[in-house]
């Protein structure tokens, strides 16, 4: 599997700016990237404290600090 690049992480952040929250799969589909790689990028961004996980009946990711929408 390819490595997570800064470019991919930037793409994930850009996408999450356009939605209140998303499942990892939705992010991968929107970016047209491999899901497993997007999973890794999201995990890396979570460790960098740039995104956070939320639970709304199931788990989603959102940009850190972005207002929550139910």
């Amino acid at each position, binding site marked *: 599997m390819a490595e997570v690049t800064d470019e991919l992480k930037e793409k994930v952040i850009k996408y999450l700016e356009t939605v209140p929250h998303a499942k990892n799969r939705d992010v991968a589909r929107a970016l047209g990237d491999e899901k497993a790689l997007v999973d890794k990028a999201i995990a890396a961004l*979570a460790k960098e404290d740039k995104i956070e*996980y*939320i*639970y709304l009946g199931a788990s989603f990711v959102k940009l850190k600090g972005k207002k929550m929408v139910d």
Partner: protein
Amino acid sequence: MADETPLLDELEKGPWPSYVTEIKRMAKKNAAAKDLLGIQEQSYKDRVTHWKHGGIVGVTGYGAGVIGRYCDSPEKFPDAASFHTMRINQPAGWFYTTKSLRTICDIWEKYGSGMTNFHGSTGDIILLGTTTENLQPCFDTLTEAGFDLGGSGSALRTPAGCVGQARCEWSNIDTLGLIHDLTMEFQDEIHRPRWPYKFKIKASGCPNDCVAAIARADFTIIGTWRDALRIDQAAVQEYVKKGLDIQELVVRRCPSEALVWDAKTQELKLLVDDCVRCMHCINVMPKAVRPGIEKGATILVGGKAPIIKGAYLSWVLVPFMKVEPPYDEMKDLLRKIWEWWDENGRTRERLAELIERLGFKTFLREMGLKPVPQMVKYPRSNPYVFFDR
């Protein structure tokens, strides 16, 4: 804050232990526990929960292991306005030293309510009630002491298994080694939720299934044997001498009629092909009947409690798999299942529900497995059969 709790007091009556009594004990030294009593009394009075669930809670880098709880009446119950649960990954088989238990309790008295639940239904240590501010320092202290969070949300839940060969002579697999290995391998899947919904792995060392893996796991591992039961005829005769009615209590109760009792020769015979390895005869005559020699596990899929659809028991996917480190065959199968489920599952759809929606045939094709009779969940009711070719 509640000084009078007449409705909760009812739960202290009777000869059994009461969690209300335990919370009252804690309330003498912890303000959050006192407000917890108040919230519950209020809920009983109003007949509605006063807890809100979910939202953003967690520690840096993790999306699992903390379950957010907020009270909807913080002005009335300020000391339990947030009362989050932390799930801590239990050691395989739930073996602890007293030192490690004291360490957990000391940390929790410092950062939380001091109340615990050993253990939650998934198997984790449950630490009940802390504030949002205390989550990160509590987590940091726990990890320094060698603990880590367990799973929650749309993630792999903390794998769990029976005590296995550590204490049980019937265990056909090393459940402790397996569960520990899977837990370490799939740390990212446990801590960073990325799937449609939750996924549970549980392992029992034998078909007695002491951890009820068949009813509680999407991926169920049950230790079994591929060859034949071992019967010690001399020990069988000892049971007869002691008055055991073998015909009635063993042979007649064999669910697949795989045993024959020859009263004349006092010999118990096994029809190997008919044995379904249920453990009944072993349980009744443990000194005379033992599992076979070629040991491994049956892998089942689909167990779950009702949420979207009803409760499911797991059913057979792989009748026999060797279970030896590094468990690559099992890990490869798990990854294949997750990939398919993640690609096709709807939000909050468990594996069993997806298999039912798209068909077991599709699932088997995607897994690269051929259908075998052991996979049959129940007899078909449709008399019409259409063959692909």
